[in-house]
């Protein structure tokens, strides 16, 4: 009873198939019965199920038939091979075919081989493993063909092909060894096995050639790489032909593959000759693959009429009802593409999908994309809308990755710039949905630059930058690339509505890298007419930061010098030259000049024109005071007071002759002396040393960085000519040094500063004692420092 169950199920499946055949027959008179293709009923049945995409039924049948058999027997091996084939076919129709999926489709075989490593049909089982691997490689190649922009996918596909090729060669050697071993024992059983192995070996020869040929799909048709790969495939085919007996199916197949290789090497006349020589070997109707090759050859030779006739002979009046043959379907697609058949291309693509399933559609996509890429923009034989339609179709089906590739190809091929922007936006959205952000960025960038005349080209390019910033916000390389992109955007579309935001963004990037001058130059690169109050302030702030970070030309040696002051001044004046025609900008320029240009530069300053803002009058009076000492009539606005104080102090430091006027002016504006370094300095200038020292002590107490304040105070006191201040300066240098580890460079500098100050005060004895003491007690001093100590002579 149990044995009868599989047979009943098999019968049910056959009945179902017959039923579906009847339905097909009812659909049209030209739909033919599946019929028997081989001598093996099961094989035909499985093939029929596969063609209809009924993978689950086929798998159930395989599992059912192999369940009752001996695991070491031929039957199980045969059904496991079929099961693996079905799984592989199913996987080929899916989007993903990675190593995990490969292991899954190989599992029926690998499990059996693991359980019985010396299975009698071990080599046949391994051959199926290899077959799955070949499909795995082919899937990778197809993916690369529709993602030609992606080098990573292309590399992966090449690697898979090379691995498959190496495994074919290795298995062929194994088969040869096994055959040699069996030759010595020519029993009836071994003779059967030898014949089987011979057939398997021949199959592998065919596989080797077909893998070599598939490699040409990785490169654009007609390219040097494609021709080189085709030539190599022809060599592999020639080698295989010498090893295969005349008249065998394998030999015929390899000869066909050789013709295909010659065709792909673009040697059409030779291909024609070889094809003509090959055709008589086939009796009856020609295999579809050869017919397809004839059609493609005609197309390549420009014999479109002949190609059309061959296709009509095969497909008849209702192409969709013609016998299933993917190679012919693809040939017809190519014909339609070359004939620029418009919407018929899209219809035929749909038909291919219906007739051959997902795998067929994938190959059709590869053909149409290859055609699109090879024709390029100049010919533009194919409407990119066809490809875009395919992409949108895939998007609807949820395959965003494939949709992205197709839409990207359509965008790149689109001649109309504005339409190209629409397509590229769709493509980028699809690629983002497929988590292929890098591809989306490249696409947006490339297409917007290629079609820079488009209305939305600048915004599209900016979108690429925004995506890049999201990708890895803090990566050094990302920031570099982002900066370059933003600069290109500003250069290409300087008047775009986004240029202001881009400038601000670029300014932030450059400022974060302490590239203040570049940041200021970027924000200043605008047209005067576009400057409003806010932008003028932003430009002014950028330049103020540059001046602040570049230090000053005053005696303040400790000021940080981010950039050369003279360079900053000249760059500032160059940048402002074209901007000061704007009132808001002129007012800021006036202020920056008044606060940051050194006095000699001020005398070169030409008239700045009429005042536009209330504070301009004060700024002019400040400039006049700095130029000629003419006391300003009014006090500075409170917001500017601190900056004005700093400026005037810097002038007074550089030129002691202006100190009295500066003291008087600042005294009037600031009122009672506040606790600050500047106040102490002014007390020193006014010879009120006691007060200065007292203020410095106060500053030191309240300072956030007492060490720095001590150093500044010591320097300030040391610069005075008053002996009391100098004495206080020595004490402060001593205090500063006492907080540092002995022997450090800063410690030595403090000691030397105290010694120099003592010398300045005329206390040579004390200076000598200190220098000698350090020379006696400090073991390791570098030569430069030692010589400075040694230069202090005994009085």
């Amino acid at each position, binding site marked *: 009873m149990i044995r009868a169950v599989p047979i009943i199920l098999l019968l049910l499946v056959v009945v179902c198939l017959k039923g579906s055949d009847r339905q097909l027959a009812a659909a049209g008179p030209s739909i033919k019965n599946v019929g028997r293709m081989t001598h093996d009923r099961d094989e035909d049945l499985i093939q029929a199920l596969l063609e209809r995409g009924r993978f689950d039924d086929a798998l159930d049948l395989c599992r059912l038939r192999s369940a009752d058999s001996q695991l070491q027997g031929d039957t199980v091996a045969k059904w496991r091979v079929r099961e693996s084939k079905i799984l592989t076919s199913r996987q080929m129709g899916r989007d993903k075919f990675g190593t995990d999926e490969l292991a899954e489709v190989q599992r029926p075989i690998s499990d059996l081989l693991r359980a019985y490593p010396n299975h009698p049909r071990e080599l046949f089982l391994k051959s199926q493993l290899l077959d799955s691997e070949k499909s795995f490689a082919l899937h990778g190649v197809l993916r690369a063909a529709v993602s030609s922009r992606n080098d990573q996918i292309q590399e992966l596909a090449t690697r898979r092909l090379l691995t498959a090729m190496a495994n074919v060669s290795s298995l062929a050697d194994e088969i040869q060894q096994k055959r040699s071993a069996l030759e010595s024992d020519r029993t009836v059983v071994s003779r059967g096995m030898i014949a089987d192995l011979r057939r398997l070996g021949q199959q592998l020869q065919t596989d080797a050639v077909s893998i070599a040929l598939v490699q040409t799909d990785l490169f654009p048709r007609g390219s040097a790489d494609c021709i080189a790969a085709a030539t190599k495939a022809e060599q592999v085919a020639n080698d295989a032909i010498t090893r295969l007996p005349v008249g065998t199916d394998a030999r015929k197949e390899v000869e066909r593959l050789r013709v295909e290789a010659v065709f792909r090497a673009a040697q059409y006349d030779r291909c024609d000759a070889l094809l003509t020589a090959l055709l008589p070997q086939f009796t009856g109707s020609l295999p579809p693959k050869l017919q397809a090759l004839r059609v493609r050859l005609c197309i390549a030779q420009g014999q479109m009429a002949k190609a059309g006739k061959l296709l009509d002979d095969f497909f008849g009046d209702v192409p969709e009802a013609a016998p299933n043959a993917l190679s012919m379907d693809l040939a017809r697609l190519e014909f339609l593409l070359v004939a620029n058949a418009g919407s018929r291309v899209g219809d035929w693509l749909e038909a291919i999908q219906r007739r051959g399933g997902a795998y067929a559609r994938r190959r059709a996509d590869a053909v149409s994309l290859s055609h699109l890429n090879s024709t390029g923009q100049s010919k533009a034989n194919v409407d990119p809308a066809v490809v875009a339609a395919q992409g949108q179709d895939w998007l609807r089906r949820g395959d965003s990755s494939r949709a992205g590739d197709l839409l990207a190809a359509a965008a790149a091929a689109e001649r109309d710039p504005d339409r190209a922007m629409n397509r590229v936006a769709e493509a980028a959205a699809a690629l983002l949905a497929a988590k292929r952000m890098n591809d989306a960025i490249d696409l947006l960038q490339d297409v917007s630059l290629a079609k820079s005349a488009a209305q939305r080209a600048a915004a599209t390019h900016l979108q690429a930058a925004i995506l890049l910033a999201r990708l890895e916000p803090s990566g050094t390389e990302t920031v570099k690339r982002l900066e370059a992109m933003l600069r290109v955007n500003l250069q290409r579309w300087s008047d775009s509505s986004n240029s202001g935001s881009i400038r601000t963004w670029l300014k932030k990037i450059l400022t974060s890298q302490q590239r203040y001058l570049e940041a200021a130059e970027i924000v200043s690169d605008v047209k005067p007419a576009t400057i409003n109050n806010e932008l003028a302030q932003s430009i002014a702030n950028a330049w103020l930061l540059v001046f602040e970070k570049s230090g000053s030309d005053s005696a303040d040696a400790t000021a940080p010098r981010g950039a050369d002051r003279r360079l900053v001044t000249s760059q500032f004046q160059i940048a402002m030259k074209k901007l000061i025609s704007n009132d808001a900008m002129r007012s800021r320029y006036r202020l920056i000049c008044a606060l940051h240009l050194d006095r000699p530069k001020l005398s070169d300053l030409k008239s700045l024109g009429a005042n536009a803002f209330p504070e301009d009058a004060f700024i002019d009076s400040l400039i006049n005071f700095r130029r000629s000492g003419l006391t300003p009539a009014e006090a500075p606005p409170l917001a500017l007071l601190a900056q004005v104080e700093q400026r005037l102090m810097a002038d007074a430091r550089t030129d002691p002759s202006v100190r009295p006027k500066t003291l008087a002016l600042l005294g009037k504006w600031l009122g009672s002396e506040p606790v600050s370094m500047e106040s102490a300095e002014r007390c020193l200038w006014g010879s009120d040393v006691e007060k200065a020292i007292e203020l410095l*002590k106060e500053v030191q107490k309240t300072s956030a960085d007492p060490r720095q304040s001590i150093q500044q105070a010591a320097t300030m006191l040391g610069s005075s000519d008053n002996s009391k201040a100098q004495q206080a300066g020595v*004490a402060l240098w001593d205090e*500063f040094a006492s*907080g540092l580890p002995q022997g450090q460079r800063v410690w030595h500098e403090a000691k030397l500063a105290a010694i120099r100050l003592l010398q300045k005060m005329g206390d040579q004895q004390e200076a000598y*004692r200190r220098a000698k*003491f350090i020379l006696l*007690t*400090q*073991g390791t001093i570098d030569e430069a420092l030692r010589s400075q100590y040694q230069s202090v002579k005994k009085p």
Partner: protein
Amino acid sequence: MRLPNTSNDDSLELKMTPMIDVVFLLLVFFVWTSSFELPEFDLPGSLAELPMGAAEASSDTQPVEKFDEIIIRLLWQVEGTQIMLNGQPLERMSDIKDRLIEITSLGVQPPVIVDPDEKVTMAFAVQAYDAARAAGIDRVLFAAKPE
């Protein structure tokens, strides 16, 4: 009836027994409280304190040293103790004295800190101390780990 003798002609008699008792008590007291060992004296030095940085140091409370302290490190090694004066190696104990004499001849009195390793004997540390004192240094201190 016998009348009491009113005459006061008894001679003053010195009673020796209590005298001897007291003398013995005193003798025992002094024997018990006396020591026969030589007296010890503290070295005229102290433990060095960790220096304060400029940020913490207040000029009001602590005067700043014009001449920084000199640190004599005594490093224990298998082949013998190594002497380092502010990082400079000295061969003999007498070199400490010579170098310090040269320094004091400048008219300065820097503090000297003797910093011996744990394994260095006390005798060696005191020799270094003596050398510094002999050179005329007033303030010789010992380094100690803060607890």
